[in-house]
């Protein structure tokens, strides 16, 4: 199979992963298009180096998350965005997708948005029900580190949700 055909097959088959990554890191359409292009370019460049011993999904998560984190750092510096949970909930102007979400889904997305780019990747993979081992492999940290960080973030979220109720 030619490289082009393989590339198209991968994008077609695993486009769900890319859409999810792009959605959690970008809110406006221009940003999404930019990030999408960057991810696709990096996948194309890395395709020759893909090793069959890795699961394709793990490989794609690694590439897309690394590109998304870099992209987020670049655009965050440019746009100087800050997000706080309370401010987001009270002044929130929903993008087309968010207007269709339930309250809980909106709250979860706001909790994610408030995280830094690395923790966002961590929690995204956790929510995607990936093993701690896979998460550690994708993000390049130890399994223990993954467990510790996830536990801390969940505890923080729990506190924020409790304070919201009151």
């Amino acid at each position, binding site marked *: 199979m030619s490289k082009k055909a393989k590339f198209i097959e991968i994008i*077609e088959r695993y486009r769900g992963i890319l*859409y*999810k990554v792009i959605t959690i890191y970008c809110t406006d359409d221009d940003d999404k298009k930019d990030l999408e292009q960057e991810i696709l370019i990096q996948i194309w460049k890395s395709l020759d180096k893909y090793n069959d011993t890795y699961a394709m999904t793990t490989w794609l998560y690694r590439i897309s998350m690394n590109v998304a984190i870099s992209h987020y750092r670049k655009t965050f510096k440019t746009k100087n965005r800050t997000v706080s949970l309370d401010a987001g909930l009270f002044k929130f102007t929903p993008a087309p997708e968010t207007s269709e*979400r339930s*309250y809980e889904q909106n709250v*979860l997305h706001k909790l994610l948005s408030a995280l830094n780019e690395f923790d966002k990747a961590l929690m995204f993979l956790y*929510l995607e*029900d990936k093993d701690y081992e896979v998460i550690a492999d994708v993000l390049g940290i130890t399994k223990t580190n993954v467990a510790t960080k996830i536990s801390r973030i*969940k505890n923080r*979220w729990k506190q924020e949700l409790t304070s919201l109720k009151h």
Partner: protein
Amino acid sequence: MDIDDIKNIWKQDMNVLEHRVRVNEEKIKTLELNKATTTFDKFLKISLAGKNMALVYALISFFIIYKVWDSPFFVIIVSLGAAAMIFSFLQHSPLKKLDLGKLGIVALQEEIYKFRMHTAKTAIYDMTIVGLWMATVGVGVFQIFSGGEVAMNLAKVSAIGFVVCAWFAVAYFGARHIYKDIDVKLKETEDGLEQLRAYKSDI
């Protein structure tokens, strides 16, 4: 909202997102196929109309031949134009009306390719025939309106010759530009369909 439910909440949200993406992609693919069909249909209809108009142009030439019947020289000139148009009609006889709505991507690509090849082969003849016909009709009309005295006046003949050549050149190069533009657009349509094929096996 319970912190232990967050994975389920996330899963529901992502299922909706993936479903919406799939629906949008299907819509886009259908739109792309419709666009390709419409573009090709437009050019096919123009070509079929052109093919039938060739007979009309031949009839115009026959009418002019009738009008200049007393002048054998002009009868021959105008007859050349009529013969050229009849040749053009016969040359384009392989062009047929198609029910494009029933064609899948592959069949549509094949039809576009065949049409492009046919147009590429016949373009040079079409351009020459149009120029020739306009020139011969121009000469015939000039003969009719000048009361049959054209051949007697060298200056007028030279003027006619110059106008005929200019007219021929305009028709030839104008048609060349149009054919090139049509081929570029059809090639883009073919390429677009090829991308659709890569994403989907059949519609």
